[in-house]
């Protein structure tokens, strides 16, 4: 089966510091993947490169079938091509209602004029309601998202990503700051999402990764250190060494 996203030989350096060093990574459609690694391993930079925020010094980023290069494309073009990204910190639009947040994320034409004359159809409303149901915010549709709890905001953001209907979801530390119950729900959401699309989860927390039960890629100093099941990588001596003391 062909790859959905193929990153090969990508290097990025900031003032001489190599954030990514000849990184290669690929993911198939409908695959759940966890990316772990210590601080400074290049996890966030990797997501920046894929989503177009950072331009790599060298390397290729190929997307979809037939493969097209994502390099040089703007963030919004890449997002519309089907790459969704969730930030570490919940970034929802706090000044706006949950409904407005979801409506904005809904996969619809994004050009200013299309949006200016946009009128939500009954179908759009149903989709938003459905999405709110999925993330457990059906009762909170008219509340301002700033009033939500931290966990609810995280879910809202995941919901927005799902509403965007991407083929690839990049999720940065979704479980940070969550209670155990919230984590479990998050795990479920992500596993559910991975049934219809590829999901990449970046996480520190080994327990959370273990619960996801998927293939794991370990990043270290900007390149892949190990790849395989969670049990496989945790036995890898290099990985143990890198994580020693943590």
């Amino acid at each position, binding site marked *: 089966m062909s790859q959905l996203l193929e990153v090969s030989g990508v290097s990025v*350096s*900031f*003032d001489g*510091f190599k*954030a990514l060093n000849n990184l290669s990574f690929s993911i198939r459609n409908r695959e759940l993947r966890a990316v772990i690694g210590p601080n400074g391993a290049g996890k966030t930079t990797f997501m920046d490169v894929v989503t177009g925020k950072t331009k790599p010094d060298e390397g290729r980023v190929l997307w979809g079938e037939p493969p097209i290069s994502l390099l040089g494309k703007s963030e919004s073009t890449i997002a519309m091509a089907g790459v969704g990204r969730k930030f570490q910190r919940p970034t929802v639009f706090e000044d706006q209602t949950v409904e407005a947040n979801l409506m904005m994320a809904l996969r619809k034409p994004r050009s200013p004029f299309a949006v200016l004359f946009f009128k939500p159809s009954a179908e759009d409303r149903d989709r938003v309601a459905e999405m709110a149901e999925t993330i457990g915010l059906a009762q909170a549709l008219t509340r301002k998202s700033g009033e939500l709890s931290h966990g609810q905001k995280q879910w809202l953001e995941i919901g927005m990503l799902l509403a965007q209907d991407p083929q690839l979801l990049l999720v940065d530390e979704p479980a940070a700051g969550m209670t155990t119950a919230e984590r479990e729900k998050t795990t479920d959401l992500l596993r559910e999402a991975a049934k219809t699309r590829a999901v990449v989860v970046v996480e520190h927390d080994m327990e959370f990764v273990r619960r996801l039960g998927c293939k794991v890629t370990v990043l270290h100093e900007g390149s892949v250190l190990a790849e395989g099941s969670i049990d496989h990588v945790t036995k890898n001596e290099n990985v143990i060494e890198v994580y020693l003391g943590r």
Partner: protein
Amino acid sequence: MARLLLILTLLIASLPAAAQQADAPIQQLLQEHAGQLAKPSRTKVAPTIDAIAGSGLPEAQTVLRKWQDKELWQNTETGLFIWAEEIDRDTIRGFDFAGDTALGELPDDAFEQSKPNSGVRKMIGAALVKFQLTAEDVATRRTAIDNIERDAEASHLAPLREAIETETSPTLKARAERLERLLTIRFGETEEERIAAIEGFQGDLGVDLRGALNPLVTTRLEAAEVTPDGPEVARVLKPGSEALPREDAYDLLVSEGIAKPRISRADKAAALVANIDGEAVAGIQVATLDTEDARDMAYAKLAEQGTVDPVATEPEIDETLGEYAFYEVFTGAPPAVALAAMDALNGIETRVAVNQAADLALDAISLGSIYFLAAIGLAITFGVMGVINMAHGEFIMMGAYTGFVVQQIIPDQTLSVILAIPLAFAVTFAAGVAMERLVIRWLYHRPLETLLATFGISIALQQIAKNIFGTQARPLTAPGWLDGSLVFNDIVSISYIRIAIFVLALLFLALFLLVMNRTRLGLEVRAVTQNPRMAASMGINPDRINMLTFGFGSGIAGIAGVAIGLYAKVTSEMGADYIVQSFMTVVVGGVGNIWGTLLGATLVGSLQKGIEWLNPSNTLAAQTYMILFIILFIQFRPRGIIALKGRAAEA
């Protein structure tokens, strides 16, 4: 009786004349040339002048000078020559050439005045120049050279050449030699000689040289059916080009009688009005004459009737112009010399341009240092703390007014400026700290609101200054030893005050680097900039550091105010004049880097001067284009010349 008296007087008066030394060598020489001396003629006088000038007699110079001044008289009886001043219509006061002895008052009936015409007087003058040039007295020789430099003539060339050989003073000799070459350019006999002299001046920028060369390349506009194919044609012109407007070309043809005259619209209308006959002109209704074409037709009809002179219509003008070629011919010198002169002038122009560029560079550097001074405080608050201080310009103004107040109290200018600098720092430091404590502290991480709040402060401070000091510009006088300029040559110079500002800018650069890199405060500032939380947890008080940094930045603005006040006028709006440029400097240079600010100031300064040079009449346009350039510049380097990259850039 009267007649007797007159004779008696004459006798008595002529008595001393007898005492004239008739056998003195000079008198003998004069007698040899008596004919030409008494009635000089331009064509035959030359040997006489040469003989007198070449006699080597001490009196020769006096003779020539008196002769030139029309003060040479010949006794009609004895034929002896004396020189004399006229006292009134009838009497003169005579002197003998030999020994310059006074002969007393003489009746002028007995003497015949020699009246050389202007041509002869010139020849005598040339001979005299030789005397002056070879005079014993250095001052006389210098005066002679001065005179020739001021008002040279062809005849000066030969005596000058002779004088150079005997000249003993090295400076005078150098001047004379240069003068000789300049005169050769102007009056040399052969073309080769003149061209050689022109080429000998390679690399010279002197105004005198340009003065000598310019008349050689004068041209005259001529028209002919075919352009002559000779070396005298300087260039061919097209009518209707910038060098030769269509009207001028046509007027030349008219003045040479080749073409019919043309008439202006106003004259044409006047001619028509003058010939209005009832409701019509030449049978055409006046009411229909509301286009130029209709008026042309009416005028043509009048011309047919013979009422007015025929004039050329526009198509005729075009046709005539098409038949003639217009060209300029050299009139100032033979073509070969003119071409050589033109080459030399072009060379001079190039070198003048190079020197002007050097002068411009100096100007740019001094403007750059002013911007640097104005921007450095801003670079600290904006770059290091991320705080936009729109009241920065008003801190500059406060510093300048502090200087003004100090000068009111202490009249000694040197002392007052020396005192004003620390005082301005203190005042603006305090103002900066107060502003940081009262306003900015509450707005960290809200840059747009900081910008607005500081704007409010800026508006208020400006108006307060206006209320206190009034709207008129206040002088801040620089100490006397800063007056004047350092002059390198005719073109390149820089005033001392600008040099002082430049030095001050360098001092601040050094001070800034010293404080940031070598002191505890600098270390703490850098720590707080990079990571305030970490710095706080290591025992640094970020509040205190922010306050001091802000005060430091503001204090420097105050000192910059004193410097700017010395160079420009102190007004309540002076800050506003510099704030945009200061921001441009910081933005262009790159935030958070003092070298960037330095580069930015240099770039903004040179840019402004460069554009002013391209368009010297219009400094407003220069600023406009500079801002446009900067807007474009930011397109390509949004983070400035020296950009922080990577993670640090996002902080």
